[in-house]
């Protein structure tokens, strides 16, 4: 080799590296997105709605309606949550079209993160001492009626303060082949195949919309992963398709005090490797999550924060009894336990967390056969299954022999897979494809009230949305009923505040902001903006 050639390569690489270092040092600060205009009598209201790709259609429809009022709105789509989030945390963004899951149907995991000062999802940067105070009380209150009262007050404050443009709750729209029997979509969007049967064949294929994060119940933070996992693992309690909490591995429970709960474990449950499930396994499962570094190799479980925070200790009383010690009263412990699945202590300790995630063993209706997380997971019926929750009809082992979860991220492909018979059940059918499936004699669309609320968060720390009149005007300016009908195919329910229509403590006395363009114009003019 010629020396010069080698030398030149060296120089090029060195230069690039040096360039990148200096680039990192002066890490580009995002350019301020607007210049402050001098205050004239009436200005044009002008701002940007940010959203991710899947919310684009609604964001555009909202923008369209605001334009009719003379507001200058741009929609900006981000392929990429990371960059957007950084901008959000810097309080740079003006309005964000967003959504938030609320599987517990309790205000706790919606209001606290979204409205508490500095809450982890508080992208409106809303801060109100009274609300903070109420939310803290609500989170630890024990009396349901008391909590309901607290949350009603919170909703009233938020209604008037309007840090969001309150949007809608989306229904879960899923679809199946007609050969699939006894399956209904669940309100928390998990697909449980335990009781499902097929009129033809014994292998059922489910098309899911995204990659499965992990098969270890303690090492993911993702609805899809949970959907798959809950077919192989059972929890202490589970939720019926319409959202009630019922016993599963736990036979019964009792709150000895507001901070001490006792669970009796069902006898005769075995894991897929034949070992019996006892209090040791339950204790181990929760210790793994709540202990720092509980997953081994210094790794901690991501399933503690927001899901198990108040649990300080899990204690084995006897082989079939455990007690949960809480740091403070935690009224929604049962709703939260639905999302934690029991793992076999001996097996996990023997093989370690990583191998366990590769070859998971649970006590659920199906046992793991093989799987690639971003392609497909195959499982087979576990014949030794104890039968699941007696409160949900048709107990006993699973009806189908084999269940396969296939990852099909592209929506129209997923629908095509159902229509061509490659898949039997598919997740997340977009409303616009429902008529197409309705026409297909082999398919049926099924819907259920979902647990996700959709809204526009306004940054209350900077103009124009630091003015409550502008925020209220936004709420009056948008005809949600029209958007629900035209863009969402009617598969959504209008919100009268931040809470789900069928959730706990929803304020029934408030009616949604009406569509009132005149009122909106008036408010905007009062705030000093020009309207059409």
């Amino acid at each position, binding site marked *: 080799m010629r020396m010069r050639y080698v030398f030149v390569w060296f120089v090029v690489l060195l230069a690039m590296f040096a360039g990148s270092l200096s680039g990192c040092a002066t890490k580009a600060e995002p350019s301020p997105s607007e210049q402050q205009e001098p205050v004239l009598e009436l200005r044009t209201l002008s701002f940007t709605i940010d959203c991710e790709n899947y919310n684009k259609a609604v964001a555009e429809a909202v923008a*369209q309606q605001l334009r009719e009022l003379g507001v200058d709105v741009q929609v900006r789509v981000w392929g990429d949550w990371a960059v957007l989030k950084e901008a959000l945390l810097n309080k740079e963004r003006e309005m964000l079209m967003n959504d938030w899951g609320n599987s517990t149907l309790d205000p706790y995991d919606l209001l606290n993160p979204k409205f508490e000062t500095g809450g982890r999802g508080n992208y409106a940067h809303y801060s109100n001492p009274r609300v903070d105070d109420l939310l803290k009380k609500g989170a630890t209150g024990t009396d349901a009626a008391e909590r309901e009262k607290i949350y009603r007050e919170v909703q009233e404050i938020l209604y008037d303060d309007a840090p969001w443009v309150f949007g809608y709750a989306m229904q879960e729209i899923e679809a199946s082949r007609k050969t699939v029997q006894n399956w209904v979509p669940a309100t928390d969007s998990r697909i449980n195949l335990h009781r499902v049967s097929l009129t033809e064949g014994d292998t059922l294929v489910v098309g899911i919309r995204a990659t499965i994060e992990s098969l270890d119940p303690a090492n993911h933070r993702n609805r899809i992963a949970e959907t798959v996992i809950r077919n192989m693992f059972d929890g202490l309690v589970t939720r019926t398709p319409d959202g009630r909490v019922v016993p599963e591995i736990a036979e019964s429970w009792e709150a000895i005090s507001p901070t001490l709960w006792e669970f009796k474990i069902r006898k005769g449950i075995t894991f897929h490797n034949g070992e019996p499930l006892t209090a040791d396994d339950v204790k181990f499962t929760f210790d793994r999550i709540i202990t720092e570094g509980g997953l081994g190799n210094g790794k901690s479980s991501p399933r503690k924060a927001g899901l198990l925070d108040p649990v300080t200790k899990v204690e084995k009383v006897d082989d079939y009894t455990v007690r949960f010690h809480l740091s403070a009263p935690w009224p929604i412990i049962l709703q939260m336990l639905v999302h934690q699945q029991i793992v076999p202590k001996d097996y996990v300790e023997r093989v370690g967390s990583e191998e366990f995630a590769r070859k998971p063993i649970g006590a659920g209706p199906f046992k793991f056969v093989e799987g690639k997380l971003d392609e497909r997971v195959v499982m087979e019926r576990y014949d030794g299954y104890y039968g699941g929750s007696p409160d949900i009809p048709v107990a006993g082992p699973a009806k189908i022999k084999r269940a396969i979860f296939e990852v099909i991220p592209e929506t129209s492909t997923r629908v095509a897979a159902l229509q061509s018979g490659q898949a039997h059940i598919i997740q997340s059918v977009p409303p616009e494809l429902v008529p197409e499936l309705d026409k297909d004699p082999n398919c049926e669309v099924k819907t259920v009230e979902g647990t996700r609320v959709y809204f526009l968060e306004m940054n209350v720390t900077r103009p124009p949305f630091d003015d409550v009149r502008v925020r209220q005007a936004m709420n009056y300016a948008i005809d949600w009923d029209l958007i629900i009908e035209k863009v969402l195919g009617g598969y959504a329910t209008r919100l009268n505040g931040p809470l789900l229509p069928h959730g706990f403590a929803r304020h029934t006395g408030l009616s949604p902001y009406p569509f009132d363009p005149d009122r909106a114009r008036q408010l905007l003019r009062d705030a000093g903006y020009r309207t059409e």
Partner: protein
Amino acid sequence: MLTAARGTLTRFDPVLIRVRTIARNFSELAYQVYRHPSALIGFVILAAYVVMALFAPVLAPYPPNKGSVRQSFMPPAWQEGGSPAHLLGTDHVGRDILSRIIYGARVSLWVGFLSVVVSMVVGLVLGAISGYYRGILDDVLSRFAELLMAFPFLLFAIGVMAILGPGFFNLIAALTFKSWVEFFRLVRGETISEKTKEYVEAARAQGQSNFAIITGEILPNIIHSVVVLATLRVGYMIITEASLSFLGIGVQPGIPAWGSMVDDGRDYLRTAWWVSTMPGLALLLLVLAINLFGEGLRDILDPRLKVD
């Protein structure tokens, strides 16, 4: 042939003859395009698009973002339920598709031409310097170009968009970041081979400066292959914009670009085919025209250059 006598002419003549030559080249070129059927067709369509873009506010029945959700998904006028008020129907939020296509010509042509022009200029300048002076600078630039060539184009564009965030000029930046390399390689190669030719030697003997030789002698002789490459790249850029839209990082929704319109409509392809298909056809026709024109230009200007 067009290129035949250029070298000898310029030797004797200062500015005047050169201008005359270029003018004659242009009229001769126009005649050649006229004679070449596919180049002519391409040119006519392209010209129509440019007119459409320039006079969009006059031609379009509505502003691009006007519309009401109330009138979403109206089919084209000739279909049942369509209305003559919206010839090509309306999209998912009720905007007139014809108007958006007409305005979209601006954006798509902008995306195509701007990104190509920027990469062409960068490639031209660096390539000419590199090929003319050679030396260590040439080595460095060439190695760097080799490096960039090894990246898949789309992946690179995604990476750049991930760094810069969404936005029209960021998109242009993402599209040009790598594509200047192709111009660079072409210009550098051509410059190296032109440099040894007689007319360059002559100019040097006359005592012309290096700058004058590059701009006055070499560039006019290689510009035609650059133009051909540029034409062919325009279509590719417009298609790439559509692909980036598919991944959620294209032009922003308020701006009517055909690529993102096609992408917006893809979920409605089965229930409202026109939302995606109409801009798709506009895009297809434009890229077709550009390619026809570019291929035609290549036949006329430079039969040697075959591979883009």
